[in-house]
């Protein structure tokens, strides 16, 4: 069974295995399929009026499935690998181990935000940015530039305390746990704020170009699991049915043909969190 661990607790060997698997998935061309799929989903969410991957209740199950698919690709390379999670409420500075050269590398240089160290630096030769929103071929970051701080544990706890998963109209700014955690209920808050704090590709529609995308979303996913454990009598997902332009509990989430929010509710079918 797959166990997802806090990145801060990984051994050197576990970090190397994760990095090597990510680089191999990139080398064979599969990684960029995930980047392109995320960009397309985001464009469709924005432009069709049907919220699937973002801004609606299926934000959480859509990304849960997206991470499971990616983790499967990593495990095709190395069955021992799982996606670590980054608790940005605790490891919340540019000096955190997640940004060390043996995991993701650090912030970008001032000239062009280019990441200059670690396995994903352009100069290392294994991480070209092929699916782009701008012409920079290198991984870019500017940690803590746009917003100085990451969400706090108190903010996370306040979101976790909400007993309702999501509420009408089930979009940007709806009351409840999902919208609060996604950050669409407040300016540059929560999940959205973390993307903005990292900057570079993480701030854009091609955010999976930065491997921290997976560690960020693994923590968001863990918080969904934590929320359910705190509210065992609350509906695990809403809406239950009949909602126009929103993915209901038993509706299929594109692009998958056989994946519904219901099928994603129990993460222990796929992995557990340590």
């Amino acid at each position: 069974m797959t166990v997802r661990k806090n990145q801060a607790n990984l051994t050197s060997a576990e970090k190397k295995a994760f990095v090597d698997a990510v680089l191999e998935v990139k080398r064979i061309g599969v990684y960029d399929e995930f980047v392109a799929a995320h960009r397309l989903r985001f464009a469709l969410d924005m432009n069709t009026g049907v919220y699937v991957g973002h801004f609606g209740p299926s934000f959480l199950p859509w990304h849960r499935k997206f991470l499971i698919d990616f983790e499967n690709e990593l495990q095709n390379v190395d069955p021992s690998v799982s996606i670590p999670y980054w608790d940005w409420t605790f490891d919340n500075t540019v000096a955190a181990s997640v940004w060390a050269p043996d995991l993701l590398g650090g912030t970008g240089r001032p000239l062009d935000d280019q990441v200059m160290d670690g396995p994903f630096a352009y100069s290392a030769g294994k991480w070209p940015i092929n699916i782009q929103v701008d012409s920079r071929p290198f991984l870019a970051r500017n940690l803590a530039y746009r917003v100085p701080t990451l969400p706090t544990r108190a903010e996370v706890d306040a979101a976790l305390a909400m007993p309702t998963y999501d509420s009408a109209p089930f979009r940007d700014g709806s009351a409840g746990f999902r919208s609060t955690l996604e950050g669409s209920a407040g300016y540059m808050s929560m999940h959205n704020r973390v993307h903005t704090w990292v900057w570079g590709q993480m701030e854009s529609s091609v955010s999976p170009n930065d491997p921290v995308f997976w560690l960020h979303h693994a923590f968001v996913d863990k918080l969904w699991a934590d929320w359910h454990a705190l509210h065992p009598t609350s509906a695990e997902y809403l809406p239950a049915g009949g909602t126009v332009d929103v993915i209901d509990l038993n509706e299929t989430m594109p692009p998958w043909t056989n994946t519904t929010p219901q099928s994603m509710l129990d993460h222990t079918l796929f992995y557990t969190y340590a």
Partner: protein
Amino acid sequence: MSQLTRRQAVGAVTGAAAAVALTGVATAWADSAPAKGKHEGAAPGGRGKDESFDEVFQGRRIQGEPMGGAGGHAFGHGEHRAHRGHGDVYRVLIDGRELQVMRHGKSGWSSAINHYERFATPLDAARTAVTSLKGASVVPFDPNV
């Protein structure tokens, strides 16, 4: 990546209409430049969100114009009707290259480059994109890539 390939994603979305709509928008945006100079010299910040703009910001030319909805008049392609329920469709160029911008209901605008933020106007989104680019060029969205 067994299921989540791009082409399947396009086809599977919300019916083919969504993918066609997106392609139509991209095509429309690539086909014609916004009218030039309509509001040159206007003071920044005070514009309504449906107004056009054309200015040089930090050395980059940024242009914007509504394409459809209540303020639309210049394009006539009709593709804006594909944007069900979200009203405004707006076209932004940075040095002549299209930056995709989107409206999120009442909460504001974002762009493909600053996707996790909300801006009061497309002009604010364009200016922030310029600062993000640090001299790089926009790569316009192509739904077929």
